[in-house]
């Protein structure tokens, strides 16, 4: 049980020796305050003697003052603070508690709160090996029980304890216990648990928590503590093929080149062959270097430093893998995505994806459906709100190496990061690489962009006009195109209104549709650039991330962002289409500048103000900037192909 070994007092050295073999178990407790979760955790801390005298003194005082147990100690108060903090508006996703016994050290992920439950629980469960799901014996299997169980299985926890609590309030009835157990097991068949252990207990009275209860002579199974001390968290990772995401190249001098990382799965020995899946380059492990001396073998979970026999290209983000069982290497995959931010997911928007030690741009290319966490039903969805879970396809800016999460928890996960706020907005579990990504390769064409542009004697690119409605974007773009045409340039103008009549006829003005609108326009512009054309794009394009996405689709120097920075007052005064009037009167919703945000560019190539300078002068200036003697796109006659 706890640190009660007589050895502590009699022979501390022997005791310390015995502690060197101690294991570690991380688990999560799921349930609301009403289920007695805090009482249960408090009691585990208490009984493992991790409550100190000074804490005990304040606990006794608090129990009498605000406790709910009369003169008895209220264990739940040991975990205080969370309620008060929630009232102060402080977001707590997970609090971590620690206790240990002579056999194991435990890290408990404690997730308070109902509203943010999905986000909190997924976060806490991501590192857990066991989930303890609390059920109030009086209430039985509730909606929230199903939700907790689904989330536990979603993040790959394979061992669950169903703690049927408050047995004292149902007279320790074995019939009630059996009833709940049968119902839970029937429900859990659709989930992917390896083991389900039901324990009748009373956290408050201590029944079957540490010691077997005399009140439940009909229960022959383990106590909760015995289960936690002995459960074999069948380390899935050990049985999988070797994977080590490379975090850092160790290079103390020219003679030593090591690759440092934590082994995600499998094991490795000197002499083993390893491959870098991206390049297909192979080598053999020469040494496993640690400060405590070279190792003969290293296994999943160890942080090591490998040197290789050959000089092959390996850098941060690569995975060293078993060449006979390679991970997927692709730029598209299907994944289950948990949304964790107040700003909803926008399919098509460019986020950053971090997986292992790799960070790449990524977008959700298709949102297939949303999963109702209470009923497990699939529902059609255009977006994911905070705490929603969806199945979607992701397209990355660059291929990465990964495994399906179900096979490998260590190499199948990722988070999504917002590019502007840097917030972590989503967490994902990869299902599989998409076939078209693994099998369809870019066609290398003989006639390329340079040759097409060379024939037209011009450098292709995009002039991207952004600004409020009525700022004068289209007027200026029209004038610029005329001038370019008169100079013999080959151009094409994509105008917001016109494109919305055709290509983007199916899109509205929600944030999600605005993102898709810009994505299609940017793709179209890219095709024209590939054809060697100078493309003028005249779109409000209110969001920075989408303009950045357009910029990133093109090569360096091909994208010129022109901010037509006419003030809102002037635009509204002009109101050429009468739209501001409609928006102000509420007839038109989601109108940029009125009730929808415009994010001004931070570093545009050019800023012009059509409220102060005439459109003609601005157009002249742009042509000079673009094609003047020292301008970026100037092609001296016949010299550049």
């Amino acid at each position, binding site marked *: 049980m706890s640190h009660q070994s007589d050895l502590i007092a009699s022979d501390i050295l022997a005791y310390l020796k015995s502690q060197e073999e101690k294991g570690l178990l991380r688990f999560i407790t799921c349930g609301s305050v009403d289920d007695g979760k805090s009482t249960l955790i408090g009691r585990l801390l208490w009984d493992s003697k991790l409550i*100190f005298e000074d804490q005990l003194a304040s606990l006794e005082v608090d129990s009498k003052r605000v406790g709910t147990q009369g003169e008895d100690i209220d264990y739940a108060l040991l975990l205080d603070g969370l309620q008060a903090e929630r009232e102060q508006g402080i977001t707590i996703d997970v609090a971590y508690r620690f206790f240990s016994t002579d056999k194991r050290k435990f890290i408990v992920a404690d997730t308070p709160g109902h509203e943010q439950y999905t986000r909190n629980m997924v976060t806490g469960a991501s590192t857990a090996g066991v989930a303890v799901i609390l059920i109030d014996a009086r209430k039985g299997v509730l909606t929230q029980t199903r939700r907790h169980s689904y989330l536990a299985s979603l993040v790959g926890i394979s061992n669950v304890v169903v703690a049927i609590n408050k047995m004292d309030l149902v007279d320790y009835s074995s019939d009630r216990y059996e009833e709940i157990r049968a119902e839970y097991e029937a429900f859990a068949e659709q989930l992917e648990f390896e083991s389900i252990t039901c324990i009748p207990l009373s956290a408050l009275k201590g029944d079957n928590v540490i010691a077997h209860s005399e009140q439940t002579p009909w229960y022959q199974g383990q106590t909760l503590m015995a289960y936690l001390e002995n459960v074999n968290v069948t380390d899935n990772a050990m049985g999988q093929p070797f994977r080590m995401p490379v975090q850092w190249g160790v290079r103390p001098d020219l003679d030593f080149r090591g690759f440092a990382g934590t082994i995600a799965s499998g094991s490795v020995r000197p002499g083993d062959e390893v491959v870098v899946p991206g390049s297909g380059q192979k080598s053999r492990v020469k040494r496993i270097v640690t400060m405590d001396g070279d190792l003969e073998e290293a296994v999943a979970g160890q942080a090591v430093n490998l040197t290789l026999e050959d000089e092959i290209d390996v850098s941060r983000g690569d995975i060293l893998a078993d060449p006979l069982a390679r991970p997927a290497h692709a730029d598209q995959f299907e994944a289950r995505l948990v949304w964790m931010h107040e700003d909803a997911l926008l399919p098509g928007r460019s986020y950053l994806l971090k997986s292992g030690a790799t960070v790449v741009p990524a977008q959700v290319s298709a949102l297939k459906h949303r999963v109702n966490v209470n009923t497990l039903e699939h529902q059609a969805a255009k977006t994911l709100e905070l705490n929603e879970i969806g199945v979607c396809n992701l397209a990355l800016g660059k291929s990465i190496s990964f495994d399906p999460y179900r096979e490998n928890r260590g190499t199948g996960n990722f988070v999504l990061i917002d590019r502007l706020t840097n917030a972590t907005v989503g967490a994902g579990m990869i299902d599989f690489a998409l076939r078209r990504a693994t099998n369809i390769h870019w066609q290398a064409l003989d006639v390329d962009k340079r040759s097409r542009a060379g024939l037209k004697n011009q450098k292709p690119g995009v002039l991207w006009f952004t600004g409020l409605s009525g700022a004068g974007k289209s007027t200026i773009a029209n004038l610029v195109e005329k001038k370019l045409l008169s100079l013999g340039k080959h151009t094409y103008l994509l105008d917001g209104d016109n494109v919305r009549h055709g290509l983007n006829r199916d899109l509205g003005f929600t944030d999600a549709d605005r993102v898709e609108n810009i994505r299609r326009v940017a793709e179209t512009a890219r095709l024209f650039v590939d054809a060697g054309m100078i493309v003028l794009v005249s779109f409000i394009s209110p969001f920075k991330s989408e303009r950045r996405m357009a910029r990133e689709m093109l090569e360096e120097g091909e994208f010129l962002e022109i901010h037509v920075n006419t003030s809102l007052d002037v635009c509204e005064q002009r109101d050429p289409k009468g739209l501001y009037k409609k928006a102000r009167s509420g007839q038109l919703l989601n109108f940029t500048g009125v009730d929808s945000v415009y994010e001004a560019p931070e570093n545009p190539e050019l800023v012009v103000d059509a409220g102060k300078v005439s459109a003609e002068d601005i157009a002249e200036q742009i042509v000079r900037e673009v094609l003047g003697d020292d301008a970026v796109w100037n092609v001296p006659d016949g010299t550049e192909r």
Partner: protein
Amino acid sequence: MKINMTHLRQLEAESIHIIREVAAEFENPVMLYSIGKDSSVMLHLALKAFYPAKPPFPLMHIDTTWKFREMIEFRDRMAREHGFDLIIHTNEEGVRQGVGPFSHGSALYTDIMKTEGLKQALNKYKFDAAFGGARRDEEKSRAKERIFSFRTATHRWDPKSQRPELWNIYNARVKPGESIRAFPISNWTELDIWQYIYLEEIPIVPLYLSKVRPVVERDGALILVDDDRIPLEPDEKPMMKSVRFRTLGCYPLTGAVESTAETLPEVIQEMLLARTSERQGRVIDYDQAGSMEKKKQEGYF
């Protein structure tokens, strides 16, 4: 061969992973070195993380000028032996104004010499990540702290902008001026720290072990007479007691415990048998209610 990942080996691997992530993702990280037992473990882990290379970041000590003398000796010896880059920063403005714990009280003194001193140094060297040796079990308000704790450009901890941390993936994106504090030993407990120090034979400041030392009693705490700056009553004589320290900081703010534990195993034995939580020796916790939380928001660790 079956490799048994004991709890200490798992904690060690997790910490090394975190230290490497910070080194790889940030442009200008620094390790805050407080000379205490937690810092000693953190430094040991950093040495392991990059072996046989040296850690690719400097160590920094915020010297309040009131640290135990044995701490400073230990710090300089460690720097010599390991050859790491050591930055020592003191709030010179505070020194000029004569700010000290006896004259100004612990709250104001800590704010000026420690919190302000730290902010000054972070600004001066433009560090975008700073390792700290805080642990989640030290205090209730730390139980929910992230491994990567995000700080605004003014070093404030904004509870609303903290990021969820899943698996072993840490979001390291910051804008210019913003930074993170990284806590690689978050999941270690006091007992883990001592067991690891014992197992790995990590050098620690001798003040952690009992010895007969001169102390005086102040507000119920035993304070070491470490130099002649401590004000004594006219006829007061320091008591000679066998004492040790469970935490180390500024000597006037750190209470000793009476003990006969002269070896590490004896210290661990005492800890397991006696039951007083570690921060009780720190005067700073008692000055204001909820003081840790407040200090964190202001930029203290």
